[in-house]
């Protein structure tokens, strides 16, 4: 059966009080002209007349083989099985799970049950997060961690109850756990309906469109500013900021185009690996080496830069210029305009056990080797792999092979032809305590 004919299903997860019912009501009132069936495991108040609302108790069916990856949701099989008998009566299904639901069996139902698989496609998993309480919940329950790990969209709700800085920190934490998900913020689940419906979230192209930086490498610095400077002494001034010090590498002969910036970034990564030289306010910053600006005294602080001949310099800084209100001025005190500015995906500590791994490689893959590698990986680590998706360039195959999976279950098919596009592979895994290096090596061994 063609995927296009399947009825899309969106799963709404999130702890009690995260705003699932509010979002559900919002979707129902805004999705005009769409006939939506709602399966509710939590007895909320869906107050929309035209909706077909079915209440069903969550029923988790484990298999006799004891494999958690084979566990399905009996209530969904039963209710969806009946809904498909009336397929001309609705064109979308929303499943609202209980707060404590494990998303694994819900998602697995769409892979494991032949009849459900033939008639429905899992469009996406949307997890609502109560911004004020999620940090406590994450510490206490595996369910909330897994709901985040499984999500295609994370709705950071009730943001009005949390300070901006804490919200940024929370968002970073969630992104670390699940780099595949799109994060949207809301106060009372007031988000556009198209951010949660018809995501085609199992399509990696869509994911990349929404988060283009998703597969970018991480750097030890967050920001680069390029300045065209004449001969002379220049002042780098910084105001109070979030940290008592900041790492910096000044790179001379830095061109402002993107390729040059990337080249400079690669070079600076090596400098950042060296230990930093401490520079106090009023001292001169040497070019080409890793320095650490001491910023613990209150008020604006100045450092100096000596330029022998006209050049462009790149400042590769640990924080963005905005955070410390960083300026560059000439001897007359005039501010120097930036030629270019670039923000990088910053490296940081990954605290949670759950994280994301992305592998991107050019070239063709040997299908037998890939099957063997993936088979062993999923058998041994399937329990800890919550989601995976990506595309593969198989040798001799004119089309991209796209796949997605939940725990041990993988489903894939050929997609559009490669045409003139460079043949490459992208794989994304979200899981618990995954060994990135060995997975990367394992995949590389499958390349021809």
């Amino acid at each position: 059966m063609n995927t296009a004919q399947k009825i899309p299903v969106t799963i709404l997860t999130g702890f009690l009080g995260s705003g699932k019912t509010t979002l559900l009501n919002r979707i129902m009132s805004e999705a005009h002209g769409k006939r939506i069936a709602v399966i509710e495991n939590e007895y909320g108040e869906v107050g929309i007349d035209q909706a077909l609302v079915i209440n069903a108790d969550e029923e988790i069916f484990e298999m006799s083989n004891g494999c958690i990856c084979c566990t399905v949701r009996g209530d969904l099989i039963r209710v969806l099985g009946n809904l498909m008998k009336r397929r001309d009566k609705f064109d979308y299904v929303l499943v609202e799970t209980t707060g404590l639901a494990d998303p694994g069996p819900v998602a697995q139902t769409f892979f494991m049950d032949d009849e459900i698989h033939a008639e429905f496609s899992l469009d996406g998993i949307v997890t609502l997060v109560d911004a004020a309480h999620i940090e406590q919940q994450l510490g206490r329950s595996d369910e909330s961690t897994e709901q985040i790990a499984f999500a295609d969209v994370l709705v950071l709700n009730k943001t009005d109850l949390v300070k901006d800085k804490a919200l940024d920190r929370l968002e970073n934490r969630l992104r670390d756990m699940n780099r595949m998900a799109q994060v949207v913020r809301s106060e009372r689940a007031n988000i556009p309906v198209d951010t949660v419906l018809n995501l085609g979230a199992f399509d990696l192209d869509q994911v990349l469109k929404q988060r283009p930086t998703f597969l970018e490498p991480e750097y030890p610095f967050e920001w680069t500013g390029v300045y065209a400077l004449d001969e002379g002494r220049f002042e780098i001034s910084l105001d109070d900021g979030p940290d008592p010090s900041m790492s910096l590498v000044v790179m001379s002969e830095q061109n402002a185009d993107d390729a040059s910036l990337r080249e400079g970034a690669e070079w600076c990564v090596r400098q950042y690996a060296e230990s930093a030289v401490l520079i106090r306010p009023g001292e001169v910053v040497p070019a080409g080496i890793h320095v650490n600006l001491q910023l613990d005294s209150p008020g604006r602080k100045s450092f100096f830069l000596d330029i022998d001949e006209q050049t462009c310099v790149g400042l590769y800084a640990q924080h963005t210029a905005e955070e410390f209100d960083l300026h560059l001025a000439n001897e007359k005190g005039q501010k120097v305009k930036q030629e270019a500015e670039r923000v990088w995906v910053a490296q940081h500590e990954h605290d949670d056990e759950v994280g994301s791994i992305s592998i991107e490689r050019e070239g063709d893959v040997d299908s037998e080797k890939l099957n063997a590698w993936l088979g062993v990986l999923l058998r041994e680590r399937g329990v800890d792999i919550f989601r995976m998706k990506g595309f593969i360039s198989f040798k001799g195959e004119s089309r991209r092979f796209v796949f997605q999976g939940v725990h041990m279950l993988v489903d894939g098919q050929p997609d559009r032809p490669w045409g003139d596009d460079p043949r490459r592979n992208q794989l994304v895994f979200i899981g618990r305590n995954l060994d990135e290096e060995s997975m990367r090596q394992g995949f590389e061994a499958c390349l021809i």
Partner: protein
Amino acid sequence: MLDLKDHSPRGVIHRGWNANVEDYAIAGSWGLEGKVLVVADAVGGVYAYDGKSGIRIWMQHKVHAGGILALAVHPNGTTFATAGQDGRVLVWGVVEGQINQSIDVGTGWVEHLEWSPNGKWLAASCSRKVHAYSSSGVEVWQSDDHPSTVSAIEWSSAGELATACYGRVTFFDAPTGHPFQKLEWKGSLVSMALSPDGDVVACGSQDNSVHFWRRSTEQDSMMPGYPAKPAALAFDDTGTLLATGGGEAITVWSFRGDGPEGTRPGILDFHVQPVTKVSFAHHGMLLASTARDGAIVVWSLQKDGTGESIGTAMLADLGTELCWRPDGRKLAALDAQGGVTVWNIR
């Protein structure tokens, strides 16, 4: 391979009549000793057709809000019951189509409905409970909650009701509702068939296996390896053969001698799409099967479970139900587009 391009019936299957109900034809049964065919559709309509001519005798629209889920004709053939998503059971007269009783079972879907063979009791399952009613519609008892929603019910004798659910088959004493036997198996049981003597219980499981129990000895065994979940099961009237559909092939287990354990089942290969229903004629080892593509096959079986196709026909869409007329001379088939097709078998 199946070549049914012209859709005309072949072999023992001969053209009879056809009709259409409003939506997905979900359940049907013969009444008045085969003189009337009653059919229910997924949006809650009930229809009665003259068995010989196919002329519609009466119809009622939208009697169960949300749709009908089950229909069962009383052994006397003159009344029948329907159950639906509205949590109700209705008891009807076959001839006039009047509703004699309306029973509120519960707030959930009433998915399964069976009259006891002596017609004294009507069993209905709703969510995790099964309820038993007298023939006048008075509740006699209701069970405690099962471990999951009840997935199948069947009377093993006039005084004994069996239910299947996740992990368990339970036998209830009909007059009291006492659950006197429980057969357990960690798996989701999606279908159930009982041998006519009530000794063998067979259940299709979500993990693509069929599980058997012999109640007299409490021995059980598992037949794994189906390509899909065996949702279609049927015993023949002698209790010799169990036909199971899970995937395109039909697997027939023979209970002759010490079987089926350790024996090779009969494999009926003809369908090119997964089988959705199997049904034995009341005598003569004739099996009818239908599949997702609407193909219909009638098989003649041997006591060892092997067999051959002796007739084919085609429905407009997925076959949802097969009903042999009690004398085995007509076969009614329902389909997902609301088609009601009756063939003569000779």
